[in-house]
C-alpha cells in the first residue's frame, strides 16, 4: 500500500526529526502528530504549525490514537498538512480518501514505523504504580518507578488492537469472534446483554471511529427517522451498537479505536470483526482501506453470491 506520493522514512531518522524536517523544509504548512500530555501516558493528537510548537511533539509508546479522522477537517483548511501514519492508521486514511472525506491533495501522508503501543491500564493492572520512565529492552519493558525498577513483558501490556495488528505475523484476530460464534444463541444473547448494558452512551466510540465522520450523525439527527432522542427504550438507544456496526460495515478497517476508548471496556470491536469475518467468508477477503479506490463489499455483488440461508446452514445455535 505504498503510494508514490507518500513520504517514507528511508533514512530511518527519528520521527521527531522527520517532523522537524518536514516543517523546516516547508514540505507542509502544518503537521499532525502527537503532543505530550499532562502525564506520560496521555499523549494526544495535535496540529503543529511551526517549529517552536514542535517542542511538545512526542512519538513514543503511548501514541496509540489514530490521526486519520482529524484530517476530515484539517484537510479542508488552507495549506498542506503532513500527517504521521502508523501502519494501522494508513487503512483508515485510505478509506477516508476513498470516501472523499479527506482532500488528498492537501495532505502529505508520512508513513512511520510502530512496534505496538502500550495500554496504561494493563500496566497498572500488573500492580506497577508510580511509573517514572519506561524503556524498551527487547521483548521486555524496563519500568522505572518510585518503588524501584520493575520489568514486564511488552506483549502483556500492548493495546488490544496491537495484539492483532495487521502488520504482525501470526495471531488470529477472529479468535474471540469464533469463541462467541461457538456459543449457543442464549449464551450469545446473554454475553452481549451483559456487555452492552454497561454502555453509558458517552458516544466515545462514535467520536473516535474513523469511519464515523458524517456531516451530521444519524444519532444526533432526530429527523432522519431512525433516531429518537435518548430515551431508555427507544429504538436507537437500545440498538445503538448494532446500528453503528452496520453503519460502518464494509468500511470499518478494524483499527480497534472503539474498544481502546471505551470507558466501560466493552469489546465493541468484536461486533465489527464479526462483520469483517462474514464479509471475508461470504464475498472473499477484503480489507477496508487496503487501497483508496476499490469498491467495498456492500456496494458490489456477484451473480452467484451466497443466499442469506447460509446463515442458517452455518453451524452455531447449538
Amino acid at each position, binding site marked *: 500500500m505504498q503510494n508514490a506520493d507518500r513520504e517514507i522514512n528511508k533514512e530511518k531518522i527519528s520521527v521527531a526529526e522527520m517532523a522537524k524536517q518536514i516543517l523546516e523544509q516547508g514540505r507542509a504548512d502544518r503537521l499532525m502528530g502527537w503532543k505530550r500530555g499532562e502525564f506520560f501516558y496521555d499523549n494526544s493528537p495535535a496540529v503543529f504549525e511551526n517549529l517552536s510548537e514542535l517542542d511538545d511533539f512526542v512519538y513514543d509508546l503511548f501514541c496509540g490514537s489514530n490521526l486519520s479522522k482529524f484530517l476530515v477537517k484539517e484537510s479542508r483548511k488552507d495549506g498542506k498538512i503532513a500527517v504521521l501514519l502508523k501502519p494501522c492508521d494508513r487503512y483508515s486514511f485510505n478509506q477516508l480518501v*476513498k*470516501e472523499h*472525506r479527506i482532500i488528498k491533495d492537501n495532505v502529505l501522508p508520512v508513513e512511520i514505523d510502530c512496534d505496538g503501543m502500550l495500554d496504561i491500564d494493563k500496566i497498572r493492572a500488573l500492580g506497577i504504580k508510580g511509573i517514572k520512565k519506561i524503556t524498551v529492552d527487547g521483548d521486555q519493558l524496563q519500568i522505572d518507578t518510585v518503588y524501584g525498577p520493575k520489568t514486564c513483558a511488552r506483549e502483556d501490556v500492548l493495546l488490544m488492537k496491537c495484539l492483532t495488528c495487521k502488520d504482525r505475523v501470526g495471531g488470529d484476530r477472529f479468535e474471540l469472534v469464533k469463541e462467541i460464534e461457538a456459543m449457543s444463541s442464549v449464551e450469545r444473547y446473554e454475553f452481549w446483554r451483559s456487555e452492552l448494558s454497561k454502555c453509558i452512551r458517552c458516544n466515545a466510540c462514535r467520536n473516535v471511529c474513523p469511519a464515523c465522520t458524517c456531516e*451530521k450523525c444519524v444519532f444526533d*439527527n432526530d429527523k*432522519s*427517522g*431512525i433516531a429518537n432522542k435518548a430515551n431508555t427504550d427507544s429504538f436507537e438507544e437500545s440498538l445503538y451498537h448494532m446500528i453503528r456496526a452496520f453503519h460502518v460495515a464494509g468500511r470499518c478497517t478494524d483499527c480497534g479505536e472503539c474498544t481502546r476508548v471505551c470507558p466501560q471496556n466493552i469489546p465493541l470491536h468484536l461486533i465489527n470483526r464479526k462483520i469483517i469475518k462474514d464479509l471475508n467468508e461470504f464475498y472473499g477477503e477484503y480489507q477496508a482501506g487496503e487501497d483508496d479506490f476499490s469498491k467495498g463489499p*456492500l456496494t*458490489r455483488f456477484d451473480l452467484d453470491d451466497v443466499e442469506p440461508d447460509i446463515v442458517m446452514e452455518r453451524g452455531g445455535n447449538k
Partner: protein
Amino acid sequence: MQRIGVFVCWCGTNIAATVDIDTVVEAMKYEPGVVHASDYQYMCSEAGQSKIKQAIKEHNLTGIVVCACSPRMHETTFRKAAKAAGLNQYMVEIANIREHCAWIHKDRKEATEKAVVLARTAVAKLNLNTPLTPGESSVVKRALVIGGGIAGIQSALDIAEAGYEVDIVEKQPTIGGKMAQLDKTFPTLDCAACILTPKMVDAASHENINLYTYSEVDSVGGFVGNFNVKIRKKARSVKADICSGCGICTEKCPSRKAENEFNLGLNKRGAIYIPFAQAIPNVPVIDRDQCIKFKTGKCGLCAKVCPADAIDFSQQDEIVEKQYGAVVLATGFNPIKLDNFDEFGYSQSKDVITSLELERIMNAAGPTGGKLLRPSDNGHPHTMVFVQCVGSRDTTGCGKTYCSKICCMYTAKHAMLIREKYPDVDVHVFYIDVRTPGKNFDEFYRRAAEDYGVNYIKGMVGKVAPTNGKLLVQGSDLIADRQLVIEADMVVLATAIEPDQTAKSLATMLTASIDTNNFFTEAHPKLRPVESPTAGVFLSGVCQGPKDIPETVAQASAAAVKVIGLLSKDKLMCNPCVANSNELLCNGCSNCQHVCPYGAIDYVEKEFRAGGKTSLRRVAQVNEAICQGCGACTVVCPSGAMDLKGFTNQQIMAEVDAICR
C-alpha cells in the same frame, strides 16, 4: 398536521363478507390525523369516487387512505379522483384489505383485526406524505439504431415512416447483417436477398434515415429523451461522397490474401473491397492490415485506377457527436467458435462446415456460384451429414446452455434444398429433439422427412474422423439403440449462435443489462419484451435472444412503435418517487453512485455556509429524469442523506411501528 380521510371499500361481498367494515371505519376515526372515515360498496365506481371527491372538499382533507383492493389494481384510479378534487395525487395511500386480507383469511375476527392494522399502517405512512410533483424533461426527436441487420433496418424504417429522424450505426462497411449472407429463408424458401435488398435500398434512400456504416458507438451519456452519443466513423480510406461505386479498384487490387468475411473465409478478397454486390453504401473500404500501400508504402494502384479520384490514404477516424431521444439495440449474433468441439473435426477437415458456411456455398452469389461442392476438392458430395445442437444446450461450459432456436428449421431447409436440387445426395440429420413451433414450421420439417426423404436420426455424433478423403461420422441411433458409422463427403454443423461481442460494451455504456449469455435483458419477459430496463433503450432482434427472421422483424417493429410513442411526446413525465439527497447531510462518499444501476447520481462540489464561514463540499445530486426509484442508494448511504420520495425512511419506519403497535 394532516387532515386524513379514510374510505373503506366493501368490494361487494369480496371484502365485506370477511372483514367487518364498521369496525374498521370506527377504529380509523381514532387514528392520528384522521378527520373522516366512511365506507361504500364499490369505492372504485363512479359513485364511490365522487363520495371521495366530496369528502375531500367537505372536510378539507390533505390526504386519503383507501382500504380496498391491491394498489396494483386501483391506485391510479384513486389518485386521479384525488387529483380531480384538488389534492396532490401522491397524497393517496392504499390499504390492501382484499388480496392481502379478506381473500386469504376465513376467520372474520382475525381478518377484521388485520384490516384495522393495515389501515392504520397506511394512515401512519400518509401522515408523513408530502405532495410530490413529477419532473419533466424534453425529448430529442431523433432515434439511434445500433446495428444494421434486418432488425435494425426494420426498426429504422418504421420510425422513419412515422416522421422521425433515425441514424443507423453499423460496424461493417455495409448494412444487411446476417440475413444478407443467407441463401433461402424458411419455411417459404424465398430468397433472402430478394426480400432484404429492397429494404436496404429503402433504408438508404429514406430522407429520415442516415446511415453510419463502418462506424461504432464510442460512448453514450445522458438519459431517456436526451442521450448524447459519440459515433466513431472509421476511416474507409475512400471518399464516400465522390466514389461512384464502379468497383474498378476492387478488381485491380493486387493483394488477394485476405479472407472474404462475407463468405466466411471460403474464398479471398482484395485489400480494397465491397463486401457483396448489393452492398449499401456501394463504396469500397480499404482493409489497412492487408493493403500493400499501408504495409510497405508502395502500390497505390487503386488510387491510380480510380476514375473519381476517391481514394484517400490519409483519411482518419472521425467522431460525430449527436443527441437522441431513444436508442434501439439491434446488434445481432454470430455463430460460436468451434474450438471446444474438435470431435466434429471442423479444424481438421475443410469438408466439415458450419451451417452459415453452407448458406454461402448454396448461394448463387457465393464462392461456388451456388453449386454444392466439397470445399476440399470441389467434388460433388454424395452423402451429407447434418449435426444439430453443436454447442447449444451444453451445460459443461464448452458451449451455450440455451437452445439456439433457429437451427432445427434451417437444417430442415438445407436438407430439403439439397435433396431437391441433388436427389442423388443422401442426407442424414442427427438430432436430439426437433423443435418446430411456428406457423407452418412442423409441416415444413415433416415435408423434408416425408417428401424429400431426409433421413432424420434421433441421436448425436460422437466423432468425425477424416479418413481416405471421406469423413467417417460415428454417431448413435437411439431409436434403433445402435452406434453407426456413416461415410460422408460433407458434415454440416448447426452451430450455436451467441450475441455479438459489442453487446457487452454497449450494455455498459447504456447501463442496459445483459444476462449471463450476454443477451440483452428485457424490462419484463412477458409484458415488456422489447424494452430494456433502462428507460429509452429498446431491443430488436437476436441481441435479446435467439429468434428467426419473422420474429426479428416483428420485434423490430414493436421496438419502433415504442420509440415512436416516446418521440411523439414533447415532455416526459418522470416518476416523482425518486431518490433525493439532502445536501446538508451528504458526506460525498460515492457509495450511492457505486450501487445506482442507472448512473443517475452525480457529484458536485458545492459551497456551504455555516457559522459565517463558507466551505466547499462534495455532495451527491440525483438526476430525477434518470432515477427509477429503486432505493438501493438509500441503504448504502452512511449518513442518511439519501432518501426515497414516497418511500422515505420515516414513512417505512412509521409503517413498521404501526404494525408492531
